[in-house]
């Protein structure tokens, strides 16, 4: 079996840190990103948005973010919709393009600054 031996408590904690994602998706994460994946969302390109979210999170090694999908909420004209729930506050972004995703993640998800020019709704 090819693996490093655990020779100290530090080694063990390194594995624990590395494996955090294995259970963090199950504990819900600190911040939630929700992509609207109803038929309207998919037609407007939500699948690409979701892919972009996943690859951006991987690029930034963010393993404490829960990514969910949701169905149509009735704002079909503004799809693709992307919601960020951070510190209990929910912000909805509309007509999101794949190139907007890194901005939203860097500004809002990581630093807590709402990207005003894309935000179309809020709920506390």
């Amino acid at each position, binding site marked *: 079996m090819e*693996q490093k031996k655990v020779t100290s408590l530090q080694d063990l904690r390194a594995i*624990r840190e590395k494996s955090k994602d294995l259970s963090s998706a199950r504990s819900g994460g600190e911040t939630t990103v929700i992509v609207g994946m109803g038929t309207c969302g998919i037609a407007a390109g939500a699948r690409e948005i979701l892919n972009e979210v996943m690859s951006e999170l991987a690029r930034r090694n963010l393993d404490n973010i829960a990514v969910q999908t*949701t169905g149509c909420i009735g704002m079909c004209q503004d799809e693709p919709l992307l919601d960020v729930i951070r510190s209990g506050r929910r912000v909805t972004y509309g007509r999101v393009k794949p190139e907007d995703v890194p901005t939203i993640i860097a500004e809002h998800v990581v630093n807590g600054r709402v990207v005003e020019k894309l935000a179309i709704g809020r709920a506390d």
Partner: protein
Amino acid sequence: MTIFRSHVLICGGTGCTSSGAAEVIGSFKQELARRKLDEEVLVVPTGCHGMCEMGPIVVVYPEGTFYCKVTASDVPEIVEEHIYKGRPVQRLMYEGSGDMPALPHYKDIPFYGKQHRIALANCGYINPENIDEYIARGGYEALGKAITSMTPAQVIDEVKASGLRGRGGGGFPTGLKWSFCAAAQGDKKYVICNADEGDPGAFMDRSILEGDPHSVIEGMMLGGYAMGADEGYVYCRAEYPLAIERLKHAIAVAEGYGLLGNNIMNSSFSFHLHIKEGAGAFVCGEETALMGSIEGRRGMPRPRPPFPANSGLWGHPTNINNVETWANVPQIVGNGGEWYAAMGTEKSKGTKVFALTGKVKHTGLVEVPMGITLREIIFDIGGGILDDKKFKAVQIGGPSGGCLTEEHLDTPVSYESLTALGAIMGSGGLVVMDEDNCMVDVAKFFLEFTQKESCGKCVPCREGTKHMLLLLEKITEGKGTMEDLAMLEELAHMVRDMSLCGLGQTAPNPVLTTLRYFKEEYLAHIVDKRCPAGACTALLEYTILQDLCKKCGICAKNCPVHCIPGDRKSGYLIETDKCIRCGTCFEKCPFGAIEKK
């Protein structure tokens, strides 16, 4: 690094596997690959979730949506609707009773509401075949803490402070037991895990080994460190193939990580673990018989003293605990004994896992704090009696335990309270019985089990249980006399007081408690030649209610012994002396015109 946005947990315990979980797992993998979702959704086979009767169980994270009775054909819908489009599938959710809507989450389901999971903390939450998931949940941290910063005596002190008592049934304080073995002289010592769970209806140890094998390994290592043992055995019955497979895998991976072996984490502590497969004899759950079996001898108990702590396996000081006890140890050492002692009653600390079976709506595995009442377990967690029939009794503690009645439902569960009532905690089997269960028949069932499992070494158990069984058979056939009843009671006391080991000493418990709480049922069988519950076939009589009979002849056609003569014109009659009471006519009659009395 790949991040999976969603984890699909699928129960791979024995219960769910037998209801088709393997196909569900395969179907998920196939469907996710087909939709190219396999790089963002992780499929995780887990151990038992406890709600076996609703299996196969699937939990989708991050939402934590709980699906039950999932079949392979439901999988495309879950993938398409929930995982892809974010619309959870209502029809597969747990249905609340009455007007309650479908309950999507674990925590909302009453079955889980009153549970408190410590020994089962990881069961159903992690992949038991991935050691990294165990480590991610803090696994092996307690071991690391112990061997780098605690003395063996400090580990024992924590276990003593926790108030943990043997979960296999005896209830002996674990810390005290450890201190005996630690104090024993000898340069070679052993620790053993008793996984010879054999009570009818009990499966908590199996589920822990299947769902979280590393917790047992870590617990045993902590015990080894505390008592100065460098070698351990898990004695597991061969009837638990999945548990053995997962345990073998876990041991191999832990060895690969260097967590098992020599000089663990560069300390002076070394530990090696072996599995010994037993042939499944109930008596091998008794510690001296168990050690005999490991040594390659016939599994028979021997008198104590010497106790295993001084002279155990191959004559060396040995400590034996059961699976659930070991599984609690890492969390006790990790969180401190006081943390554990904060739960439970004054003398019974912490939690206990029960296997809830019988005539209860939700059968399965539940872990509850000590001090909870039987009513809460059976009615709040278990959802009450199947088909809303009347509760009659609960058999607690397996074949060594006793039957408790309605009036005991509000007793807080603890070692002392159950013993006072004539039952025992045992390993935690809870068999619920309703009005259709005959208590004499139940006593007979358990005695049949212990009689067969008696090893035959001592006379009281070998001969006594046999004669008790013969008397019970006589009574259930309606041939019993009052003298038989007196003899049964006398024998029960004799077997209890004079047997060599726990098997014989506790075998009469089902008889003694049913005699104590349900004597009128014994009397009905003996005096009135009647079984009030209608369960003892020899005492039943089937008759055709002529006013309801439509003379269709279906009963006569289906009777396997042709004892219903008659024709379509004159009607039919059952010849009682030829009738074998199989109940076929009763089941087949479309008009309910056959009476069972």
